[in-house]
């Protein structure tokens, strides 16, 4: 069992085209760290300069928003984290 991270298409260029990556961790933050351990170029896409989640990435846990403090949210095997790219055009 693992936690699954579904990636936005913008991020798949860093995961050899994979739409979903299995990771390990006890929190959303640990899972994202494990994702970046597997695919280091994703770090600058997912996190800002201060180590916080990037303003242009949204995190949903099992189909629902995970704020506030998304990165501290506990996860369990079988959970799904969805990374969504922020859209602002019109």
């Amino acid at each position: 069992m693992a936690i699954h991270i579904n990636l936005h298409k913008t991020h798949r260029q860093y995961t050899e085209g994979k739409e979903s990556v299995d990771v390990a961790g006890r929190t959303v933050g640990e899972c994202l760290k494990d994702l970046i351990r597997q695919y280091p170029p994703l770090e600058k896409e997912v996190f800002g300069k201060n180590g916080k989640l990037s303003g242009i990435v949204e995190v949903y846990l099992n189909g629902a928003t995970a704020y506030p403090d998304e990165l501290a949210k506990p996860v369990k095997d079988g959970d799904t984290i969805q990374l969504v790219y922020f859209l602002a055009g019109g």
Partner: protein
Amino acid sequence: MIPEIGEAGQEKLKKAKVLVAGAGGLGSPICIYLAAAGVGTIRLVDQDTVDLSNLNRQVLHGQGDIQRPKVQSARDRLTSLNDTVTIEIHQQTISEESIDGLVESCDAIVDALDNISTRYMLNKAAITHQLPFFHGAVRGFEGRAMTIIPGRTPCLRCMYHGDVPKEKFPVIGVAPAVIGSIQSTEVIKYLIGTGDLLTDRMLIYDGMSMEFKEFKVSKNPQCDHCGEKMEK
């Protein structure tokens, strides 16, 4: 007559005044379908003039409108579609100074903007004035939409967790056509008082995979627009 609307519903549409913020990719289908539905007054705000590069998606405007103010071009198009609808036009930027005047006497605010900072300004005005806010945004083949009812549902700012850098968003015209049509549907339902609104959930559309996904959205207690950190 559509049974969900009826004569009473059509009267409600006729009496309504809707602010549409933006006469571009999203604003085009939104205005066209609101005017076609018989929404009595559309107050349209946009500071820009029509450019050739707009025409792949901004179907309110044509080649003959290049260099004209978008609001004028839009008014002509909408009036030719339905001359019983009043089109109020404002060629100006939306700012902290102008926002209260622009939303005054409106029944709803529709987001057809191309940047996030002005969206937050509209979001805050919607909460201040207790007006429904119909969010939409696009990029490439993708889009998203959510309806916000102040005091009852999460707002756009609830989702904020950091600044979004300014950038140009390339868009294929069918993406705002899909999202703008969804926003218009929501406005019509709200004004009539029928159906289930797209509240408490973000609808995300991907035209490339032709998928719609829905994510549950909760109120953020730390939101500085509608939560405990609300600026008075």
